[in-house]
């Protein structure tokens, strides 16, 4: 009797162990099963994407702050116009738009048959409501600023006319940032409703976000019927998951990861669309001296950084504009400061700063920035500059370095929240609240103001370029690179396209 009982206990333990073995087998089977499911094309095409960060954010389009949330919600929300992969604005909720000669009046015709994800018809009323709500509540100062310059907005039938106080030729980018939402719908933060090609279905914290095809979409209907974004906050976990075939796509992979990819997925290379630089506290000695900053530019060999950290991928910058912003990117600035340690030493000497030593604060959770900082320290050592790295957590970085401006130098990447050079350049205006480095240059302020008020497109482009050149000339920062961005895509699918801003467009992906 007693023996039986103990035998039962032991066999239970054995059973638990054997369960584990069969259990693992089962996991693999379901993975294989999901592959078969996705392979069948036609009406229901399910697609599983690994995303590298949680959507730990409000999903309200005007409250979204994280780039990672924005790039996924790109599929749900649309403005009257929206950016295409080339960075042009194409009509979305509007079926056509017109800009008056003087650049003051924008007329949009609201497209017929645009239906919100909650089934409501989109009308000019919703458009007015969206502009009003966005102006009142957006977390983007740039968008709020541009919207506050609207003199009048009114609707006549399905035509919405916006009159500005002053011409602003990048106003279309602001319009694209105003997602059109249904009037008086108040659950956007957790159950967002837009007009985009995909509708939001559900979100499970730290687990996944699910989207489904918007069958009422006015444009070309997406090929994918369901997109599940699985969240992998651990980059290695994301890699193992995609390599095992459990995912159809993963983005923001590093060069090391794609080199180690063994499952035959297609690798698509693009750029992250951010300005990685050694940002220098221009308000603090010795970096208030332009010669010291220039010396650091000469002392840092950007090619070496690219070779060592990115295996030669990535794109050099030269200023605060990244290359996929091709219209405003000035190629000639890239090599404005060729690697020249002797010249660096000479400049430091002139500035009376030889034997310079300083600390680079880096957010330790961003490996690419830590890697870049590590190479910078080595390069500077060769030029006789003694730099050291202090790794801090992201919160500390934000509150101490970014908001507190309590730093000497830092490596970080700034992205563009919307498709306008202002998103990258406005920051360095001397009075701007997000001017982390305390860059204060009246010439620059003037140049940027001029660019913003110019109405002629080509003149304006030149003016933005001129502003960016001032940043380079005065060595505001040591500009490093736009990091390479790799996407691994199941060969059964095709159509992934990079955008010049944070956006992952699921509507373009289709079975191969």
């Amino acid at each position, binding site marked *: 009797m*007693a023996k039986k009982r*103990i035998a039962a206990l032991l066999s239970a333990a054995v059973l*638990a162990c054997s369960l584990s073995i069969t259990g693992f087998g089962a996991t693999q089977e379901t993975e294989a099963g999901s592959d078969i499911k996705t392979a069948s094309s036609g009406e229901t095409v399910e697609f599983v994407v690994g995303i590298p960060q949680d959507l730990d954010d409000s999903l309200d389009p005007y409250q979204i702050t994280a780039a990672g949330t924005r790039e996924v919600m790109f599929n749900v929300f649309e403005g009257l116009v929206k950016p295409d992969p080339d960075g042009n604005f194409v009509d979305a909720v509007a079926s056509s738009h017109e800009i008056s000669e003087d650049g003051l009046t924008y007329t949009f015709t609201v497209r017929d048959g645009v239906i919100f994800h909650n089934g409501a018809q989109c009308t000019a009323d919703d458009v007015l409501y969206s502009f009003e709500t966005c102006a009142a509540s957006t977390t983007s*100062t740039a968008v709020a600023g541009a919207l506050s310059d609207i003199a009048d907005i009114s609707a006549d039938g399905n035509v919405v006319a916006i009159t500005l106080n002053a011409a602003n030729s990048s106003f279309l980018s602001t319009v694209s940032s105003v997602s059109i939402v249904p009037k008086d719908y108040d659950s956007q933060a957790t159950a967002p409703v837009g007009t985009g090609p995909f509708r939001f279905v559900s979100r499970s914290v730290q*687990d996944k976000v699910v989207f489904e095809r918007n069958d009422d979409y006015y444009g070309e209907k997406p090929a994918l019927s369901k997109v599940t974004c699985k969240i*992998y906050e651990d980059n290695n976990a994301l890699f193992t*998951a995609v390599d095992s075939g459990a995912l159809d796509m993963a983005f923001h992979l590093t060069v090391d990861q794609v080199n180690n990819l063994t499952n035959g997925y297609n690798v698509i290379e693009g750029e992250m669309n951010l300005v990685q630089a050694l940002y220098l506290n221009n308000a603090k000695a010795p970096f208030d001296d332009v010669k010291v900053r220039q010396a650091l530019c000469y002392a840092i060999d950007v090619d070496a950084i690219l070779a060592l950290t990115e295996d030669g991928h990535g794109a050099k910058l030269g200023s605060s504009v990244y290359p996929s912003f091709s219209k405003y990117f000035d190629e000639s600035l890239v090599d404005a400061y060729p690697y020249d340690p002797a010249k660096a030493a000479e400049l430091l000497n002139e500035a009376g700063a030889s034997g310079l030593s300083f600390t680079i604060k880096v957010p330790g959770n961003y490996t690419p920035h830590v890697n870049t900082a590590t190479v910078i320290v080595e390069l500077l050592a060769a030029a006789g500059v003694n730099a050291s790295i202090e790794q801090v957590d992201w*919160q*500390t970085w934000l509150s101490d370095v970014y908001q507190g401006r309590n730093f000497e130098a830092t490596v970080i990447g700034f992205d563009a929240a919307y498709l306008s050079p202002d998103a990258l350049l406005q920051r360095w205006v001397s009075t701007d609240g997000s001017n982390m480095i305390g860059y204060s240059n009246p010439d620059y302020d003037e140049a940027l103001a001029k660019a913003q008020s110019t109405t002629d497109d080509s003149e304006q482009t030149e003016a933005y370029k001129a502003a960016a050149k001032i940043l380079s000339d005065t060595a505001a920062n040591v500009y490093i690179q736009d990091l390479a961005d790799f996407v691994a895509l199941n060969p059964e699918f095709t159509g992934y396209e990079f955008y010049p801003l944070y956006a992952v467009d699921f509507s373009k992906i289709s079975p191969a």
Partner: protein
Amino acid sequence: MKQLGKKLFTLIITLLIVSLLAFLAFQIIPGDPTTKMLGTNATPEKAAQLRSQLGLDRPVFVRYFEWLLHFVRGDLGISYTYKMQVSEMLSDKLPITVLLTVLSFLLTVLIAIPLGIAAGRIKNRWVDHAVLIADQLLMAIPPFFFGILACFLFGIIFRFFTPGNFIPPSEDLGASLSYLLLPALSLALPRIAMTVKMLRGSIQDELTQNYVYTARSRGLSQWGILRRHVLRNAMIPVITFLAVSAAEIMTGTIIIEQVFTIPGVGRLLLSSIGSRDFPVVQAIVVIMAAWIVIVNFAADLLNFLIDPRRRAG
């Protein structure tokens, strides 16, 4: 009954203190929820605006008591970052962590007790040595290290599972359990070692007691003595230890969930601390503290029932 009332009082006081400490800790560490929410687009004006929107511009104690008032009424509040009801967020996560805890505890009991009894009965110098060494080794290695090792070995090398590819129990309980087995085992191993060591020592101690000789002289079999007399006494310290283990396993899940990327309460806790999402942190801390106090209380109660000496006293 009087004791129960006393315990309940202790429970409430403990939870109050824990929640207050967690709250105050947030005042000391740098940054507040607005820091991460606004990220690199923050300006002092925007931060101030958001702070007043979230009510963060009011005095600490006002906020604490407001939270407390809502909490006792069962309202856990709304997450600063996700804008979701905290209770809704936890309802997804708690089952996962509870499953992991239960699985780990079951593994501990199911493996350790038979092993401990077996080890207690065998009197062999070599077996003794082997058990001792294995015990010391397993006790010395922390669960997260086992976890990393298991991930590497079974996940990366043998590919038995895909680290990070956790399937929630609501979708497929079997797949979920099989994923949780290794983390549960990682958490259980040091406790198994400790339980075996304890049970073995306790049995061997009891076996030298006079009552054992008496029982033997009455003609009882060795197994009969063990089962009827020795085990009953030997289990007393072990049960207390297992109860404490149940509490420890729950807190241990915080780390092991990171190692195996399991989207449970522990992961949510750490990320919420990172984003200074106070309502979420506070809810989790109080739940965990309550669990620890309750489990300890249950251990006391069990001892009370098993040990006639305590019942009499």
